[in-house]
């Protein structure tokens, strides 16, 4: 059942076994895993089924550290959450990233990769994908030979992408499942305005949900799960702990700390006069059946350990020669597909005819083997995704400004250390050495990585992979939630999503968010039975 708080459709109070706040990847996955069970579930979402500017503005906050456009535009505040613009890139978190790494302060999860492994199967299914095969197998199925790289320097890395032309929006894909489930009530346009606890603050009794139009409901439940993303989870908890019995929840001052993102940046440019075709044939997007894969590179765990580095991966982006017949043919084809007449058609057609061999080979490869075109290359760019080291000074706090519901807005102080820059430099160097050794390409490292540049942090783009802030730890002084994602000191408050990651590798986080959500759903099913 889907109800709209603005239309006063829900009873007051709403009674449930479990109240989930936030209908994004984690919240929807937990609710869906509990569909058609004995548990009564209320899924509370701040937005409606479609985006609206007034609700989205509730995410507006203040950046006082590195600039971070993702604070407002990276997150989406309507049913489906940020999956509504998710790129669909999927991979599991590498097992090494679960371990405590002596050279990465505050690293290590209280759970092992094996404890999450069984939940990844469900996570892949939620993304409509089969589990990712090892890179060697993907290459074999593509009929490609792996380059003879030294695996102590770089490794091949493969990703899968959700299928379809639209984002893999959980709001669109799983809406009907939740609507049909007899035990689930979705409450739209309902913002968490207050948490009520017992006198000792050890238990949440109810939450208050308010719409921007002023409608209010109390939701009483046996357990609560906040699944609102790293910045919002921290904001809600910090707001709740300003006074009253919940004050003790943050006695170790950990809530909001260790904010992390992945850093994406151009770290090198490559010339590949001889190896252009080999590079593009391997390090590219590939279709295997209906599933799109991407092959890139990663920094091996042993190289990280040897040099005190973080996890990193890279892809190559190609800048084709715009004068080539292949590029001209592509431009003509794209214009015709859009129903437009190509600009400068005569000269493009001439370039196609003058380069007919290459055009014919590429067309045949595309049509019969579904391979991307091989361009005469101008250059290839090395685009790196880096892990951010957990840093307690990188944090979310509360701003003095308040939103229209009277809640303090978030203040983000995003900070980086030097380990990220060192990792980007060493990884790009390793790629350059290996590609030179194999005669594939010659690499130039971006000057900002090697020269004194105090603003190097601004050279990275945020990826909207917001993580940390309510990290998982067995020690309440080091983390906000325990290994079951339950808030330390509160018997029935759970947190879902990337906010509980204590550290993270270079991998895209959504699949791990889903695996953790399914694990939490299983725990709640048992605990509330």
């Amino acid at each position, binding site marked *: 059942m889907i109800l709209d708080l603005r239309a006063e459709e829900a009873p007051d109070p709403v009674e449930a076994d479990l109240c989930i706040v936030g209908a994004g990847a984690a919240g929807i996955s937990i609710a869906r895993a509990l569909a058609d069970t004995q548990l009564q579930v209320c899924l509370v979402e701040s937005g409606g089924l479609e985006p609206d500017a007034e609700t989205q503005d509730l995410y507006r906050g203040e950046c006082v550290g590195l600039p971070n456009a993702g604070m407002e535009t990276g997150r989406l505040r309507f049913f489906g959450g940020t999956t509504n613009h998710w790129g669909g890139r999927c991979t599991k978190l590498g097992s090494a990233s679960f371990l405590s790494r002596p050279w990465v302060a505050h690293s290590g999860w209280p759970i092992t990769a094996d404890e999450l492994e069984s939940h990844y199967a469900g996570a892949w299914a939620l993304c409509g994908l089969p589990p990712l095969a090892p890179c060697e197998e993907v290459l074999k199925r593509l009929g490609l030979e792996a380059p003879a790289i030294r695996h102590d*320097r770089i490794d091949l890395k493969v990703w899968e992408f959700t299928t379809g032309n639209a984002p893999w929006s959980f709001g669109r894909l799983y809406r009907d499942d939740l609507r049909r489930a007899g035990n689930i009530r979705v409450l739209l346009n309902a913002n968490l305005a207050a948490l009520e606890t017992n006198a000792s603050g050890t238990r949440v009794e109810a939450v208050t949900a308010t719409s921007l139009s002023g409608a209010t409901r109390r939701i009483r439940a046996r357990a609560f799960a906040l699944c609102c993303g790293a910045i919002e989870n921290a904001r809600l908890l910090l707001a709740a702990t300003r006074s009253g019995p919940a004050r003790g929840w943050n006695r170790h001052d950990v809530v909001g700390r260790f904010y992390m993102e992945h850093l994406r940046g*151009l770290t090198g*440019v490559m*010339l590949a*006069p*001889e190896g252009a075709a080999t590079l593009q044939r391997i390090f590219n997007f590939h279709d295997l059946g209906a599933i799109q894969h991407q092959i890139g590179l990663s920094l091996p765990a042993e190289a990280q350990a040897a040099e005190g580095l973080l996890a990193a991966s890279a892809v190559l*982006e190609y*800048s084709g020669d715009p004068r080539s017949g292949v590029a001209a043919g592509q431009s003509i084809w794209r214009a015709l597909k859009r129903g437009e007449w190509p600009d400068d058609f005569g000269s493009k057609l001439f370039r196609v005819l003058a380069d007919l061999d290459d055009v014919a080979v590429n067309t045949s490869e595309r049509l019969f083997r579904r391979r991307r075109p091989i361009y005469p290359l*101008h*250059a290839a*760019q090395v*685009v790196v995704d880096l892990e951010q080291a957990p840093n307690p000074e990188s944090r979310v706090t509360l701003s003095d400004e308040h939103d229209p519901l009277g809640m303090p807005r978030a203040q983000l102080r995003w900070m980086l250390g030097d380990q990220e820059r060192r990792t980007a430099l060493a990884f790009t*160097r390793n790629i*350059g*050495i290996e590609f*030179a*050794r194999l*005669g594939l*390409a*010659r*690499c*130039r*490292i*971006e*000057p900002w990585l*090697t020269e004194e540049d105090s603003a190097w942090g601004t050279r990275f*783009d945020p990826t909207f992979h917001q993580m940390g802030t309510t990290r998982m730890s067995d020690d309440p002084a080091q983390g906000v939630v325990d290994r079951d994602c339950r808030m330390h000191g509160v018997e029935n408050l759970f947190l879902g999503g990337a906010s509980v990651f204590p550290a993270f590798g270079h991998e895209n986080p959504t699949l791990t968010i889903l695996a953790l959500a399914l694990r939490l759903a299983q725990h709640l099913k048992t605990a509330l039975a």
Partner: protein
Amino acid sequence: MMRRRLLAGAALLAACMPVRRGAAALLRGAPDPEELAGARAVAASYCRSHPDDLGAIGAIERRLAGDPRKLAAWAAAARADDLAKGDVVLVEGWIMARSEARWCVLRAREAER
């Protein structure tokens, strides 16, 4: 984002064209007279940024000077060895085996004679 990256890449390549030519020639693994300008650019930059290596280059020069075949054989073997060991230098950002940079200096000096 993509456009910004592409423009940045193109601008960088244009800005370091002579070294780029030298780097491309080295990738082909063979001394190419047409790439002498590139070798000279690499040599000049390397000598500026790594003055402490001039003694070692002098020793190689004394050992191999006047015998282009020996020099070419040394360059090929040393390059493979350096890349295997990870003994590389950055010349205006380009990653080169140390021996490649040294070879450029030797090649430039030889051309001056």
